[in-house]
Structures are given as C-alpha cells and as structure tokens.
C-alpha cells in the first residue's frame, strides 16, 4: 500500500480536533458542524479498509513500520487483521453518534468538548492499529486524558468522584501491564513487536506472571468482576456522549487486549487460567444481572447490564474455541451498538426531563411513541431476541461455552433470563403504566435525534439478520488465533518436530 491509511485514520481526527482550536470560542455552531464533519470524514476513511481488506488471510494488513525511538527499540508499527478492523468501524461510528448526541446537550466549554472527543477518537484508533506493544500502551494511556476530562467536566453531579475513580483504577492496571511489558521484552528477544513476541515458547511461570500483569490492565478495562466498581459510577456520571464512548468502545479494549496479547503471546497460561476466568465471567453475568434488578437509576441499571454483558464477552473469549471467540467478538460489537444506543436514548430523555430516577418515569409510550419504538428495539436487542444482533452473539457464546465447559453455559443462560427480566421490567416501568406528572408534553424526537438512533437500529437488525457480514472478517483471523493458543502455530511445529523426526526410520 502506498497510502498510509492507518496513520491517516489515527491522525486525521487528532489534527481535525486541534484545528477546532482555531475557531473562535463563541462560534459554537461552526465548532459543532466542523466536529461532525471530521467524524463523518473519518467514518468514510474506514471504507477503503473494508473494501481493500483481504478476508482470506490472518496476516496483518495495511502494515506500516518506521523506527520511532531507536534507543529504546520502539517502532511505530501499525497493522490490522480481521479482529481489529471491526473495532475500527465501530469506533468511527460511535464517535459520529456521540458528536450528534452532544449537539445540544453540551453547552459549556463546547470547543474543549469536541476537541477532547476527537483526540480520544485518534487515540482509540491507535489502540486498535498498533502492533508495537509500547505504541499500543501509549495510545492506551493517552485515551485516559480526554476521557478523564469528558467525565469530569461535562458529567453529572457526582462526576469528580467518578472520574478520579475511573482514572486511578485504569492507571494502576495499566502500570502493572507496563511492568509486564518490560518483563516480556527482557525474555522475548528484546523486542516490542507483538508479532515477534507471539509464538515463542516462554516458561510457564513467566507466562503466569505476565498473564496476571496483563489481566490487571485488561480486566479493569473490561471490566470483569470484581474490579468492575468504577464502571457504574463512570457510566452514570458521564455525559451521554461519554457513556456512549465508554460503553461502545472503551470497555471493548480490555477484551481486545486479551485477544491481541494474552491469548497469542501466553497460550499456556491462558489455557491454565481458563477455568478461573470462566468462573469470573459467570459471576459477572449473574451478579451484574441481579444488581440490575435493584437499581433505581436509569443509567446505573444500564451500566450494570454492561457488567453482565461483558461477562458474556469474556466467557466466549475464554471458551477458547471458534464459536466462543467469534461470538465474543461479535458480541462486543453488538454490545457497543446496543448499549451505546441505550445510553443515547437515555441521554435524550434526560435532556427533556432532567431526571434519571426510574420511578419518576411512566407512560412515555403515549407521549413519545417514536422514541418508545426505538427503545423497544434496543431493549429487545439487549435481551437477545432472535432477529436482533444480541441473539447471534449470545447464542454463539453459549454454544462455545457449552462445548468447552458445559456448566458455564448453563449458569450463563440464567443470566439471559435475568436479563430479560430487568430489561423488560425497566421498559414497562418507563414506557407503560399511567403517564406520570412531568412526563406530559415532552417534545418529540427531532430529525437530528432520529438520525442519531436510526443507524444504530439499522445495524442492530442488519447484524441480527445477516451476521456473516461481520463474521466473514473473523473466521480466518480467529482460526489463526486459536492455532496459536492451542500450539499449532510456530511453537507447535517446533515441539512437534522432534517427535516427527523420531518416527522416521
């Protein structure tokens, strides 16, 4: 490739964001329009990736490699495979949507807000493209700064507590990963290239140490039980756009980290730790769902449902088979769309009613019928109704889980039932019953809001009906990943060689 497509993808929003600084602060409308334009162009920039992507190979594509810090052997190396390309698309879409949803919700420090969102987009793109461990870490940590500001400046009443908690949780996890990276560098032939680090035969003890070091960073980000406690606070207090980005992309990075680093680089430790990880996943599913039943706050309920849904994601991931992994990745995309859409919807009614108490709502179905229709679709997708995307992902995950550890799928399935309970109950309380005081005469959805929700609704149905559109990208890459985990890859041939030689006459 002559065009550095991935670099453009990373730096276009960053430069676009910085160019917003040139616009005078008072011209709010110009700033919004420019931000939307930048995010839309960024979405278009992902198109050539989709069109030119070769689905039949697991090797990194659109590769770029330059020396960045020769003294530390850090390279600026980018590349994507079938797993990362989906996340790039999701990120670009989520940012467009979150710019749209902040159109009128953000009235204070508008310029700073959109700059932060676009810088965040650049960093998130970088996380999914980086194939150098330190470059990955740089993007991974750089995301913290804009997210910290987005929650802390434009968030709800308890925003400062929430944002500091979010920052410190993720920072501690990431720093432990940093130590792990240095340890890996020492033992993996003094390189930070993740392709070279994978497929080496590390001693099991080292693998276990590294596994837990990486776990510290990734599990906090996912978040897995019991390190999930930052998520409800951050989700609840963040502005709508912040919640959408958090749910849509940020928390996917933890699972992406497991996929990209823990599984291929530390296959033996992954297999050994499969059981504990499955246990944690199952606990997250059931625990998150039960907590949801007790919530009185709309956003907090959806936040805890994220904990439960991400439990499904890690369950599929650590089932370590084709169905589980594909379902897990698909479910990450689904969850990004569905939960993102739910947060969008909640943001929209919050703008109208300024309350998040479920008890204050009632009868919205008659006052805002179009909105009720959208919300119903999102609710059903979250529950996993066949025909929506949620069904495909969860079904694959349960299939994978059953194949690998039947008990995990059995318990996880109970999470589905609980999920239907809390989501439908929520829908009933908010949209049915008699119309509550203060819920009358709410303005209907305007065109911008419908334009925000419609693409999400479309994608939910489209993936639900034709999941192969996304799964097609995954088959080969996931297959290769599983080969690495089960030792059929590079390390496998090496260990298999002596026994094969022994059989020769």
């Amino acid at each position, binding site marked *: 490739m002559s065009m550095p497509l991935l670099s453009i993808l990373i730096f276009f929003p960053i430069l676009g964001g910085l160019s917003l600084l040139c616009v005078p602060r008072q011209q709010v409308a110009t700033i919004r329009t420019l931000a939307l334009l930048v995010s839309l162009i960024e979405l278009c920039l992902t198109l050539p990736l989709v069109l030119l992507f070769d689905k039949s190979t697991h090797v990194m594509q659109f590769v770029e490699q330059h020396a960045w*810090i020769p*003294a530390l052997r850090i390279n600026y190396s980018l590349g994507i495979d079938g797993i990362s390309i989906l996340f790039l698309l999701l990120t670009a879409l989520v940012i467009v949507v979150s710019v749209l949803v902040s159109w009128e919700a953000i009235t204070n420090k508008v310029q700073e807000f959109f700059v932060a969102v676009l810088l965040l987009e650049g960093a998130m793109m970088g996380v999914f493209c980086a194939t150098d461990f330190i470059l990955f870490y*740089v*993007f991974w940590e750089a995301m913290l*700064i804009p997210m*910290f500001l987005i929650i802390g400046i434009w968030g709800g009443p308890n925003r400062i507590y929430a944002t500091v908690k979010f*920052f410190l949780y993720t920072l501690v996890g990431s720093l432990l990963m*940093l*130590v792990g990276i240095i340890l890996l560098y020492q033992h993996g032939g003094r390189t930070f290239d993740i392709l070279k680090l994978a497929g080496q035969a590390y001693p099991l003890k080292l693998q276990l140490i590294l596994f837990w070091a990486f776990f510290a960073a990734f599990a906090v980000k996912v978040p897995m039980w019991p390190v999930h406690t930052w998520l409800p606070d951050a989700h609840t207090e963040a502005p709508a756009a912040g919640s959408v980005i958090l749910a849509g992309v940020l928390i996917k990075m933890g699972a992406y980290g497991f996929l990209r680093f823990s599984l291929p680089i530390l296959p033996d430790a992954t297999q050994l730790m499969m059981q504990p990880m499955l246990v944690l996943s199952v606990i997250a599913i059931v625990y998150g769902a039960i907590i949801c039943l007790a919530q009185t706050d709309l956003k907090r309920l959806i936040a805890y449902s994220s904990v439960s849904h991400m439990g499904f994601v890690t369950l599929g991931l650590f089932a370590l088979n084709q169905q589980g992994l594909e379902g897990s990745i698909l479910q990450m995309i689904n969850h990004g769309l569905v939960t993102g859409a739910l947060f969008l919807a909640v943001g929209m009614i919050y703008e109208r009613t300024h309350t998040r108490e479920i008890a204050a709502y009632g009868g919205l179905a008659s006052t805002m019928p179009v909105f009720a229709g959208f919300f119903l679709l999102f609710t059903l997708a979250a529950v996993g109704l066949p025909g929506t995307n949620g069904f495909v992902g969860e079904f694959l995950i349960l299939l994978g889980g059953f194949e690998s550890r039947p008990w995990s799928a059995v318990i996880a399935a109970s999470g589905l039932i609980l999920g239907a309970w809390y989501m439908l109950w929520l829908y009933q309380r908010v949209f049915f019953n008699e119309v509550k005081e203060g819920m009358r005469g709410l303005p209907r959805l305007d065109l911008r809001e419908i334009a925000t929700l419609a693409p999400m609704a479309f994608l939910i149905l489209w993936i639900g009906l034709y999941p192969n559109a996304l799964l097609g990208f995954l088959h080969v890459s996931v297959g290769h990943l599983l080969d690495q985990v089960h030792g059929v890859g590079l390390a496998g041939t090496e260990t298999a060689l002596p026994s094969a030689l022994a059989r020769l006459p």
Partner: protein
Amino acid sequence: MIQTAAVTWTALDPILPELLLIGIGVLLVGCDLFIPRQRQALPWLTVVGCIAALLMILGARPTSAFGGMFLADGYAMVFKVICLGAAILTTLISEQFWQTVGGRQGEYYSLLVFSLVGMLLMASAGDLMVLYLGLELMALPVYALVGLHKRDGRTSEAAIKYFLMGAFASALLLFGVSLLYGLTGTTDIGRIAETVATMKVAANPALLAALGLLLAGLCFKVAVAPFHLWTPDVYEGAPTLVTALMSIGPKAAGFAIFGRIVFYGLPELQSHWGPILAALALLTMAVGNITALCQQSLKRMLAYSSIAHAGYALLGLVAGTEEGMAATMAYLAVYLFMNLGAFAVLILLAAPGERRESLDDCKGLAGKHPVVAALMLVFLFSLTGIPPTGGFIGKFYLLKAAFAAGYPLTVVGAVLFSAISAFFYLRVVRLMYMSEADHSACLNFSPGMRAVLGVCLAGVLGLGFFPGPVLGWIVAALAGN
C-alpha cells in the same frame, strides 16, 4: 632549580564556557553597581551569556584538562546542557517575577551565574577536589538566593535552614572523601576506581564507611529521603523563581556528581550501593508522593513532587549501567521542561503584593484562561507520566533500565507510587477544570514568560512524540566517553 611546566593558553580551552560565565557574572555585579538605570538589561545579558556558553559546550569536542581534574566529556555535556537550560528558562521568567514581587534584582543575576558555574564544574569534575569546589560554588550563591527577600521571615528561615543543613551535608561528604583518599591515596575519580579494583579493598570496612558518608552527603544534595527534610520548607520559603531553579539546576548537578562518584568512581561496590539506592529510591517516592497528597499549598505540593521525582531519577543510578545513566539524564531533561513549566504557571498566578500559592488559586482557571490551564494540564500529566508526554518516555526508560539491571520489585513499587502521584496532580486539574473560580485573577504575560511556556510545552510534547533524536544524542554522548 625550580621546574616549571610550560603553560599555554590552549590549556584553558576546555573551561572557556565557565570562564565566559565568570566574566558575565563579574560584569553583572559591575553593571548593577555602576549603571543602575539599565537594570532591565541584566536578564538579557545573563540569557545571552548562558546561550553563548551553551553553544560553546555543544560545539566542543570531548577532552579533559588539568591532568584529568576537569573532564569535558559527553557525560558532562548532557548535565551542563540541562543546568544551562534551567538557568536560561528561569532567567526568562525572572522579569515577570520581579515585577510582581519587587525587591533587589541585581544580585539575583550575578548569584545565579556564579551558582551556574559551580554546577558546570560539578558536571565536569574528574577529581574529588574539583567536585567539592564546584559543589560549594554552586551551593553558597543558592543559600543567598533563597534568602533574597531579607525582610520576609519565611524566606530567612528557609535560608538559614538550608545553609545549616547544607553545611552539614558538605561535611559528611568531605569526611567520606577524606576516607576515600586515605584508602586509595588519590583524589582522581578514575584512579580511585582502578585502585579499588586492583587493591581488592572492596570489603574494607573503612571503604564502606566512606561509601555511606558519600551517599548521605549526595542524597542530601539531590533531596533523597531520608535526607530530604530540608526540601519542603526551603522550597516553600524561597522565592518561587529560586525554587524553580533549585528544583532543576542544582538537582541535575547533584545527580552529575552522584553518577560520577558511584558509577565511575566506585563501580566495584555496586553490590553495596545498588540495593541501598534502590531502597532509598522507593522510600523517596513513598515520602514524596504520599506527603504531597495532603498539601494545601501548590508550591509545597510541587516541592514534595520534586522529592518524588528525585526518587524516580535515582532509579537510573540504581541500575548502575550505561543504559541507566542515560535514562537518568533523559529523565532530568524531560523534568527540566515539565517542572519548570509547572513552576512558570505558578509564578504566573501570583498577583502583585499577593501570594497565590494555594491549590484553591487554581480554581476555575480553565474558564478564564483556557490556554494557561491547558498548558498546566500538559505539564501535570507529564509529571504523572501519562503518554503521549515526555514524562512517560522518561519514566519508561528508567523503569526499563532498572528492570534490566535486576530490580523488578523496585520497578513495581515505582509504578505503584506513580499511580498514587496521579491523585494529587489530578487534583490540580480537577480544580482548574471542574470548579468555579472564587476570584477573578488577571494574568499578564511578559514576553519572556510566553517564551518559557512555549519552550516548555514544545519540550514536553516534543520529547513525548519524537524522543528519538534526544535519546540518541544522550546515548551517543555517554558512549563517546
């Protein structure tokens, strides 16, 4: 018959930058006395002199002079550039500072330049005598600078405290030096290393006592716990400008002699000083970061943070490898920009006749002065060590070096303390961006202040995004040794 060695002027070539600065210092005293109306030219004279010295140092070839007593090698060059950078940047801010604070400024510049000569000598010291000479030449003017506001009780207290403690530390250092001389019969640092190696005195208790005394003295100079107790009071009491200088210049020079003694002079004892320094580094980070958590004064918080950063910088020395030394140098280079940037913003906040040093004075800064707040944000995130700022690269280099040298637990401790530090740096960000202002501060920028903020921002981000050339330069300078 008395034998005389032929003296040629070319022998002075390696110390020309120092001689130039001494000349500038004398000139500054003269200008201050005899043409008092032209005092506003003094900072510019200082800056021009420092820049000239900087260029001379960068252009010079590695040599040694006076029989190895003065080493103008790559090692010295890196530290000299950092010290000169600190002097230049603080001088550029000084105009604004004296405008708001008032007071006598003539002495300030000459004392600064003389102290700077001391720092350069420390960086170049190849002999324990020169090292001590440089140390005292650096320290004495700084004692005076700390007490520059004669009528301010806080300042005078800080100066006295600093002087007494500093003299005590110098005495410890001298005691160590004399023991070392007694054991090896030389004060040349290179030859001490050879003698210790050949005479196999590594286990000699007197040598260990000398090492202990040297370490105590050196740790005092770079404010490493448990020898840090003077730092918060002195840093808080001194005029902010002097604090900014002290937290960088003398500290970098202190690390220069620290590295020279332990790394070049006593490499045989690495198994002794390595673990000791590792423990001290951890202790320093703990003390600095945890105490900074509960400060109400921004200045005092930055003082504790600079203690913590001394702990990080020490990690490179702990490693005791070339890589570690390079990491310490790189960290100090980044630290120059980020710490000076933070202090520059602190100076900017001060209003005439009013001390604005408390954390509450940052409240709502983002609303009124978004650019200043954004700059402070970058400096604070860099001090925390979050990429893509230079602070991350510096810290990463240190961690990597310490890890490679076999101190994994120290590295884990360092990252945990670094997470703790995030809390108090973030508190400032929180106050700037997430609180409403109590009072409306009107900030005015002198041209020098603008330049310094610009340079610091460029330094922090430049070292974050494109650290390659600078790190390459440092590694090459060390290797060319």
